[in-house]
């Protein structure tokens, strides 16, 4: 592209909700007035110190933030064994898996639920893949006494039973979605359809940095608490900024949250890790940036897995949370600008990283950050020994032990 590089990577989106050509508001007219209402309400809430104070109170006392920045010493030493004597980055984990509900999703959910209350909405809907966003939304709805309906692909309902049960315990209704491929993409379609039919009283709490403007911006803003904390914590621990940041990418919310506060630090390398499923050479993966091309789905222009006729293709990943054929518009833009590198990790690599992390650090990660860890194990040994690497450990693996056991041939 011949466009001049922007002097800041942190100014997006523009007034149309675009990051370069990506983003926008591609929704049916029925939803458009509501999308504009959300945008206005969010802009007003952001200007209000009391809104921010209430959100931060919840993050501190309910979620348990700030989450620790953990020096993964055994992992660091393990990866240095196979490296040259001057190589092998020092690895830190940003431990968002310690949040209440077990993942980073709750950060943006609480912000959105506070917004929904300000807007006078009395019902909440959400889509979920792995169930983490659904659990987080059900949790916040229990706390604020709001009825909650979570749309979840029937395939995901099957493979994420523990989270389905959690959502029900929390008082949410889980609606299995059987249309299309019955995964996250279809759950989002169905949530949007439900929203169209219930615009008056319902707020749609989107779980990732995708969807029509202002969602990609809003979810990013809330998740940026991850990167902002990381910045303070690494300065306190090391007295300098990190050299590299790693995070898994499905829709891209945990990565966007970690990366955004660092985007204008040219010395900080950023690596987003997509699910390469059974391999990028196969058709079974979820690598929208590496194997897709720009398209419009779910209200925004983004990199999308699609066939030659613009029909959306099914994604595949062992991780239900990464099993999505698109990726947020800001990632799409950063990919084209080359500010962030995007690489893949396969199902098998993620499974290996999942076990490695459990044994070396005593932390069972979710399959989503296990993908980021797989890329870390590949790239950290080639980085200088004095370099600092932070990986977002964005979720814990409790929900995944059944899936992993199955893949390892263990009967439970």
């Amino acid at each position, binding site marked *: 592209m011949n466009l001049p590089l922007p002097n800041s990577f942190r100014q997006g989106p523009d007034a*149309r909700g675009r990051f370069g050509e990506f983003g*926008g*508001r*591609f*929704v*049916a*007219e*029925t*939803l*458009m*007035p*509501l999308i504009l209402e959300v945008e206005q309400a969010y802009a007003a809430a952001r200007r209000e110190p009391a809104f921010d104070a209430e959100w931060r109170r919840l993050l501190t006392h309910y979620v348990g933030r700030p989450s620790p920045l953990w020096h993964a010493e055994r992992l660091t030493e393990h990866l240095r064994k196979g490296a040259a004597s001057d190589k092998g980055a020092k690895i830190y984990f940003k431990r968002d898996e310690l949040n209440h509900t077990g993942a980073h999703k709750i950060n943006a959910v609480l912000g959105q639920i506070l917004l929904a209350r300000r807007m006078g909405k009395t019902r909440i809907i959400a889509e979920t893949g792995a169930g983490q966003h659904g659990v987080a939304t059900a949790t916040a709805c229990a706390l604020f006494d709001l009825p909650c309906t979570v749309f979840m692909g029937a395939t995901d309902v099957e493979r994420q039973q523990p989270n389905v049960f959690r959502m029900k315990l929390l008082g949410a209704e889980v609606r299995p979605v059987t*249309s*299309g491929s019955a995964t996250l*993409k*279809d759950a989002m*379609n169905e949530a*949007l*359809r439900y929203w*169209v*039919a*219930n*615009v*008056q009283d319902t707020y749609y709490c989107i779980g990732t940095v995708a969807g029509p403007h202002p969602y990609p911006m809003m979810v990013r803003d809330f998740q940026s608490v991850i990167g902002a904390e990381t910045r303070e914590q690494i300065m306190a621990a090391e007295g300098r900024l990190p050299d590299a940041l790693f995070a898994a990418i499905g829709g891209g919310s945990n990565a966007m949250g970690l990366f955004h506060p660092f985007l204008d630090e040219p010395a900080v390398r950023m690596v987003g890790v997509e699910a390469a499923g059974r391999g990028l050479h196969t058709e079974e993966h979820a690598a929208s940036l590496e194997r897709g091309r*720009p*398209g*419009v*789905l*779910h*209200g925004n222009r983004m990199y*999308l897995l*699609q066939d*030659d*006729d*613009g*029909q*959306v293709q099914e994604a595949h990943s062992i991780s239900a949370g990464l099993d999505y054929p698109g990726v947020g518009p800001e990632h799409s833009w950063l990919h084209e600008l080359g500010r962030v590198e995007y690489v893949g990790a396969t199902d098998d690599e993620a499974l290996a990283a999942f076990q490695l992390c459990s044994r070396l650090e005593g932390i069972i990660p979710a399959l989503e950050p296990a993908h980021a860890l797989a890329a870390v194990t590949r790239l950290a040994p080639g980085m200088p020994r004095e370099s600092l690497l932070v990986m977002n450990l964005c979720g814990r693996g409790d929900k995944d032990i059944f899936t992993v056991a199955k893949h390892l041939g263990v009967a439970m």
Partner: protein
Amino acid sequence: MSRIADRFAALKREGRGALVTYLQAYDPDPATSLAILRGLPGAGVDVIEIGMPFTDPMADGPSIQKSALRALKAGATLSRVLALVRDLRREDATTPVVLMGYLNPILSYGVDRFCTDAAASGVDGLIVVDVPPEEADEIEPQARAAGLDMIRLIAPTTDDARLPRVLAATTGFVYYVSITGITGTRSASTADLAAAIPRIRRHTALPVCIGFGIRSPAQAAEAARIADGAVVGTALVDTLAASLDEAGRARPDTVRVVLDGVRSLAEAVRTGR
């Protein structure tokens, strides 16, 4: 004047509203789809709306979702949809044809080329559901240059402040989505419609058609009386689906059954009952 303007002007002289029907191209197979489309003008359809199949139709209910999947399975692509329109045009030069669908397949085809090819194939207008006026520059200049009308949806949620903006970006006719909801799920009340249509007319001289939730001949007649036309989609798609065999293939009477459904709608619109 365009075929769309001609047709609505003629109906106005006749003193009745239009029957607009929606069926998905290639549902359940290209031959059946073409046979039904060719039969529509004779069965009393005034404006033919053809769905462009998409994997993820955000504004459509289960019936049209399934119909899109049948059509895609039968090999539907945008270029084949345009070929279908050319085949239809060989026998009918006057009935307006409107394509309805979603943006991504058009982007994939190339917006410029699509608009040019669609116009050359005999298409008169486009309804692109997920392109609100805010995103109109994605396709409107190209459509206008090709001489295609951009028919826009107005919803019950489109307030008075927003109406002029949406209408300014509309040509051909206005498609009033009578319910807040997806296609084929519920119906608006007479009172709602009686209030909604004059509100739109205060802002535009374009013909107004009512769609979403119109299933029966009586509902079609009422909508065509209150507004300038009634759009029936899901009910016909359901009729088609019910006529298929267990494997989703057309039966010998599929074309006739669908056209019979159309005829009863057309009769109701003409007699006002």
